[in-house]
């Protein structure tokens, strides 16, 4: 694919330039944002960060950005924002302070930048110290054979004599409503549905509509079907809660399907 001639020309023309460009590309990729780049550049001043020349640093940064632009290296927006801010800072530092200006002075801004660099460096060093500490699972180790703490939950149920009497009174009073109880023929209780489903689930290896699990004959009479559907659905929820079955529904109002849960 490569045209040998062109390759050669390219090679001859710009070995030095390309090397410089490559170095820059590598560097830009290696920097974690403009602050990191500034910290790196400040190292060349080889002084305590508190005594750094921010003006000099700003110039270095702007130069770096210029070069990158010349080499058409794509720079992320935040590098350019920082460049603009540093150009502003540079002008503030170079020009005599304007007494009518309300904003912070160039020195204040420079001091803050120096503080930010110091702080970033301090965090870098701290991170390195932290990672150099003895670490669990690498330098020191936990018990390899922990013993289970047996959690014994004692549940005590209580009821008072009054509870007992009230309960009895309740069931006795219910006798008055006995006639209503007579109507229970068309009602499938959840217990009944549960008992019925329990017997059927071992065979429910495939997904099947829940409606197919209604007791025989109950699906014809609308009243009975309603009760049976409700009870069977409630029972299926109970079984799902116990982890015996799985339920699924394709979407709202879609048929609900049930299947035994494989263990």
């Amino acid at each position: 694919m490569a045209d040998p001639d062109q390759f050669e020309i390219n090679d001859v023309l710009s070995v030095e330039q390309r090397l410089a460009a490559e170095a820059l590309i590598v560097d830009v990729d290696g920097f974690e944002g403009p602050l990191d780049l500034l910290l790196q550049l400040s190292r060349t001043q080889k002084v305590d960060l508190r005594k750094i020349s921010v003006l000099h640093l700003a110039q270095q940064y702007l130069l770096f950005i210029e070069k990158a632009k010349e080499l058409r290296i794509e720079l992320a927006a935040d590098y350019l924002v920082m460049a603009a801010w540093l150009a502003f800072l540079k002008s503030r530092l170079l020009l005599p302070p304007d007494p009518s200006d309300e904003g912070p002075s160039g020195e204040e801004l420079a001091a803050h930048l120096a503080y930010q660099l110091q702080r970033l460096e301090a965090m870098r060093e701290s991170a390195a110290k932290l990672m150099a500490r003895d670490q669990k699972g690498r330098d020191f180790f936990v018990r390899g054979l922990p013993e289970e703490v047996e959690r014994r939950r004692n549940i005590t149920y209580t009821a008072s004599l009054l509870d007992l009497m009230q309960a009895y009174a309740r069931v006795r009073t219910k006798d008055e409503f006995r006639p209503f109880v007579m109507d229970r023929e068309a009602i499938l209780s959840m217990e009944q549905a549960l008992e019925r489903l329990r017997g059927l689930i071992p065979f429910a290896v495939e997904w099947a509509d829940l409606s197919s699990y209604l007791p025989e004959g109950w699906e014809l009479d609308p009243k009975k079907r309603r009760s049976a559907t409700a009870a069977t659905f409630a029972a299926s929820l109970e079984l799902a809660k116990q982890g015996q079955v799985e339920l699924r529904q394709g979407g709202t109002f879609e048929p609900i399907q049930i299947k035994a849960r494989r263990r």
Partner: protein
Amino acid sequence: MNDLPEQEESLFDAPPLAEQERMVEAVLFASADPVTVNDLASRMPHGCNPKAALELLQRRYEGRGVRVVRVGDSWAIRTAPDLGFLMQKETVETRKLSRAAIETLAIIAYHQPCTRAEIEEIRGVSVSRGTLDQLMELDWIRFGRRRMSPGRPVTYVVTPHFLDHFGLESARDLPGVKELRAAGLLESRPLPGLDATDDDEDQDDLFEDES
């Protein structure tokens, strides 16, 4: 893997035995499985004597909260047997009995001996197996004699533990229907399903199994 390292001439002296004991201690502590003497030797620097170190360590842990024990041909650190009770955490939770359970219990107490069908008839709903099991587990009810009716259904009666819990001398001490009504627990209207003579008859049956 378990082979002893070859006995080459070591360039260094083996660490002092006290140091070897530390090593054995750390390995036994951190290992997920009991460790063989060979395994110890292969992990420790050349010229170590894990057996001697193990013996020292074992003696050091004598009478402590954990012990160095032999498991087959391996070694491990284990909790001293007398401190096993520390490995349990007990929490006590008090819950109120469910409505179904308390009603079932009340019916059994007032009507014992009482079959499941009878309980269902009185409550008007079916009684789940779980409810009865729970009451049995609490030792508040137990099986009574089988009824001599068709199917010979099993009956339920309350236990002495039940009487104890509710502070009753006998089930006869349970407040009667009249008292319930006087206490405002029953509506004052006469109840069609309740026949006083019926109740009296039941009372004879009460405590059949207790004498």
